[in-house]
């Protein structure tokens, strides 16, 4: 394949992974923005989305029911976690990190015990090839990119145009004042946490026909989301999407030409330095 072909492939791969990463990271960013907590177990919601998809599509013989079942199940789990773990510790930032590390291991190891250590494939709901001058590309991947883009737009509309979104933004800007104006902050926290989990689960559902479901897949998703959220500015939604593209495209291009490990080393180091010198991220405001 020519250099040109390689580059087009890298950009396509980058585009698809950017959109999926944006979806996962948007969930993390939303939770951080509204609740001011870092959810270390966020990647496990992504993994659960993928694993539940395997169970549902095996039982039902079709992929599509998983698109409804998995996000609902993960969202319900998030509501329980919020009620049983996060609210009792009053969303204290450091305590939340320790507690969600604990949840990470609980979820991951339960999946290992029940689902097993296998990487299992899920048959895509349809299969077609898009023929390009250099190579044939999976049509499913392009559909995934489209669905992820739609979900991003839907989340943006939810946050900017609905009452729930208004309440979320009010809580994000000033919790005390929002409370004084009658915003049910407790319920908004629960909704934001569940919505964040649903977004991660949806990303998991979408990628599983391409990646296979495995109990350890959450950690990579978590680290990538961290990078995106930090570069994009903690809690800033447009910044998150822009950063997902920056990181997804760079990762796609660099991984095609160089070693993926080297790409990750450079990316992790740069992200840490960004957080040290610009705590608001490259795009975001100086909040947090």
């Amino acid at each position, binding site marked *: 394949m020519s250099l040109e072909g390689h580059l087009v492939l890298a950009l396509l791969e980058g585009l698809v992974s950017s959109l999926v990463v944006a979806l996962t990271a948007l969930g993390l960013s939303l939770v951080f923005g509204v609740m001011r907590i*870092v959810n270390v177990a966020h990647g496990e919601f992504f993994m659960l989305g993928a694993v539940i998809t395997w169970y549902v599509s095996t039982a039902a013989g079709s992929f599509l029911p998983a698109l409804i079942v998995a996000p609902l199940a993960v969202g319900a789990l998030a509501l329980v976690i919020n009620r049983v*773990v996060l609210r*009792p*510790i009053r969303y204290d*930032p*450091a*305590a939340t*990190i*320790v*507690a969600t*590390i*604990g*949840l*990470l*291991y*609980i*979820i*991951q*190891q*339960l999946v*290992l*015990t029940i689902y097993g*250590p296998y990487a299992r494939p899920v048959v895509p709901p349809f299969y077609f090839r898009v023929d390009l001058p250099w190579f044939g590309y999976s049509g499913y991947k392009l559909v995934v990119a489209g669905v992820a883009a739609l979900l991003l737009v839907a989340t943006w509309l939810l946050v900017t145009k609905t009452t729930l979104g208004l309440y979320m933004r009010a809580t994000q800007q000033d919790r005390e004042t929002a409370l004084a104006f009658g915003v049910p902050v407790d319920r908004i926290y629960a909704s934001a946490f569940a919505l964040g989990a649903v977004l991660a689960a949806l990303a998991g559902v979408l990628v599983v026909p391409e990646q296979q479901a495995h109990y350890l897949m959450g*950690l990579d998703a978590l*680290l990538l989301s*961290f990078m995106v959220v*930090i570069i994009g500015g903690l809690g800033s939604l447009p910044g998150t999407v822009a950063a997902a593209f920056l990181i997804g495209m760079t990762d796609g291009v660099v991984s095609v030409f160089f*070693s993926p*490990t*080297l790409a*990750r*080393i450079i990316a*992790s*180091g740069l*992200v*840490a*330095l960004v*957080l*040290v*010198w610009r*705590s608001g991220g490259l795009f975001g405001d100086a909040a*947090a």
Partner: protein
Amino acid sequence: MTGQRGRPVLALHVAVVLLLLGLQFVVSPFQHGMLARIMVLAAFAVGYNVLLGYTGLMSLGHAMFFAAGMYATGLTVFYVGAGPVDGFLIGLGAGVVLSAAMGLIVLRTTGVSFLIVTMMFAQVFYLTTLYFNRITGGDQGLILTGHLHPLRLGALQLPFADPAVKYNVALAVFGLCFLLSLWLTASPAGRVLVAVRENEDRTTMLGFNTFTYKLLALVISGGISGMAGSAYTLLFSYVGSSFASILYSIYPLLWTLVGGSGTTIGPLVGTALMTYVVDITSGVTPGYLIVVGVVLVVIILKFPSGIVGGIRARWLPWLP
């Protein structure tokens, strides 16, 4: 630690070390090996506790200091044929140098940012050990058996494969770190660290350069962690990238929280308890790390001060 309160505190800590010294003559061979491992890992937790318990900085990247000591020692022994004492000093040096360099960067952040930045840098370290797998052995690691010379004390030849040597070297390393942390808590610098933990702004107002004190704490913490990593390599003849992974940043946090962060004895209690719990569960289920998760959640929800912290609050207010 002056006057009346000083003597029972020192006596208690010496008694803990003597108890560990005596235990080797009564326990079974299996427990003997287990205790040697626990003591080295407890030294790691003691180092972590200097930063979390006495300075109030929660790091999620201590695996890099432990692994720095481990790789510095392991690689010099494996490739250069360094002796155990030289290897150990190089491991300690690696921990000190890495933590000083890291400190200059990461101490510009606080709170949640500090956690994430330390985690990211540890991830860089971990991936680097994988990337250079031709040298480091990557996931597979390197086995030092055959490369490691016995420890020479005068005319004595002490091979590390001998369980008694293993146990007593582990005890010496742990005892050193343990008493160092006790001395630190009683020293004027240690008092300033606690002041930073309780209220950093006020400590700055009192005229202390808090950055220097935090850097000091991080270097002591990283140095002890590097020492523990180095000792682990010497005693168990192995270097591998799994010790640089995020799990080994979470373990010292777990051990310290379980035992009681901000107590000198807590890290030993937490490490011993959790090593046994993890060891027993790993025989029952492949998903044994679930106990790590459950214990972390329960500790945060119900017992935030840990075992020794709880004992101190209820019965022994003089515990350091």
